[in-house]
């Protein structure tokens, strides 16, 4: 399976995402924001960072970049797309996901290992988890407060489209402690914390067993590979 990772000017975690894809067992394909070509990939990751300096709004200018026309088209046809952090912001700006992300409630940039509960295991990116599995992956954002209108929020909750929720603390003031959501079809997922930083022993969050041994993020990437094998 070939999974594309789009690099925008200001992307930070594109190579981490490529590495996570490789460790999960797929082939990462580097894609460039200025092209109109997905190079025949089977799935897409929009990585974290500060695309175009986040100057207009987080992810807003990136959502208007050339390759996003192809990303939106592919997503609407069912291709799995995972937006992480800045990538999640791009997906909301591109109207592939509902709601929006605003400055953290506390006004500060937050960087911590964050416990989450995976609440929907039917999406392309979460089917490898068990229902209500609790995981820990890094969170690092300045504008990660998830907001949506009352109607939208009720619909997301009612349709089980909250895929991950913050545990212990609500780090950024997100409504209903929402850390990630999916579209109705389950192929497009946005997540504020960073699974790609918890995929390899020695480089992940601390666990009870050993320092930096946490690899809870890997299942996001193995999920989409498993899904592609089932559908093949």
């Amino acid at each position, binding site marked *: 399976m070939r999974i594309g990772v789009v690099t925008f000017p200001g992307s930070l975690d594109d190579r981490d995402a490529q590495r996570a894809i490789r460790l999960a067992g797929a082939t990462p394909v580097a894609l460039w924001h200025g092209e109109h070509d997905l190079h025949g990939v089977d799935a897409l990751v929009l990585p974290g960072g500060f695309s175009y300096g986040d100057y207009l*709004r987080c992810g*807003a200018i990136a959502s*208007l970049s050339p390759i996003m026309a192809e990303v939106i088209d592919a997503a609407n046809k069912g291709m799995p797309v995972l937006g992480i952090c800045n990538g999640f912001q791009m997906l909301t700006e591109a109207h592939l996901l509902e709601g929006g992300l605003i400055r953290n*409630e506390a*006004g500060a940039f937050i960087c911590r290992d964050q416990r989450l509960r995976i609440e929907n295991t039917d999406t392309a990116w979460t089917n490898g988890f068990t229902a209500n599995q609790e995981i820990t992956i890094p969170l690092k954002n300045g504008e990660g*407060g998830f907001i949506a*209108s009352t109607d939208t929020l009720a619909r997301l909750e009612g349709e089980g489209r909250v895929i991950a929720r913050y545990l212990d603390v609500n780090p950024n003031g997100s409504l209903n402690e929402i850390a990630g959501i999916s579209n109705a079809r389950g192929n497009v997922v946005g997540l504020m914390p960073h699974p790609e930083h918890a995929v390899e022993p020695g480089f992940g969050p601390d666990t009870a067993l050993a320092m930096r041994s946490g690899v809870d993020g890997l299942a996001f990437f193995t999920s989409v590979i498993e899904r592609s094998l089932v559908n093949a």
Partner: protein
Amino acid sequence: MPTIVVEVMPKAELLDPQGKAVAGALRRLGKTEFTGVRVGKRFELTVEGPADAALLAEVQELADTVLSNSVIEDVTSIFVLEAVAGETH
């Protein structure tokens, strides 16, 4: 050269952490007469030609789709800054 101003504010019902931080600073300075602060954005779009109805319609469209995100912000005003007297074109 006319300039069209577009002003965008965070939605009134949303928490505005930027405004809250500024309000906190004013309070610490003893400026207790201000009970709230909200921080928004102002865009100035400059054009060579006249700011006619067609152009303003286009600005309205851009304000709604690019300059603001209606999920989190409202476009609060759009107006034309008249060219400064004596300016040559």
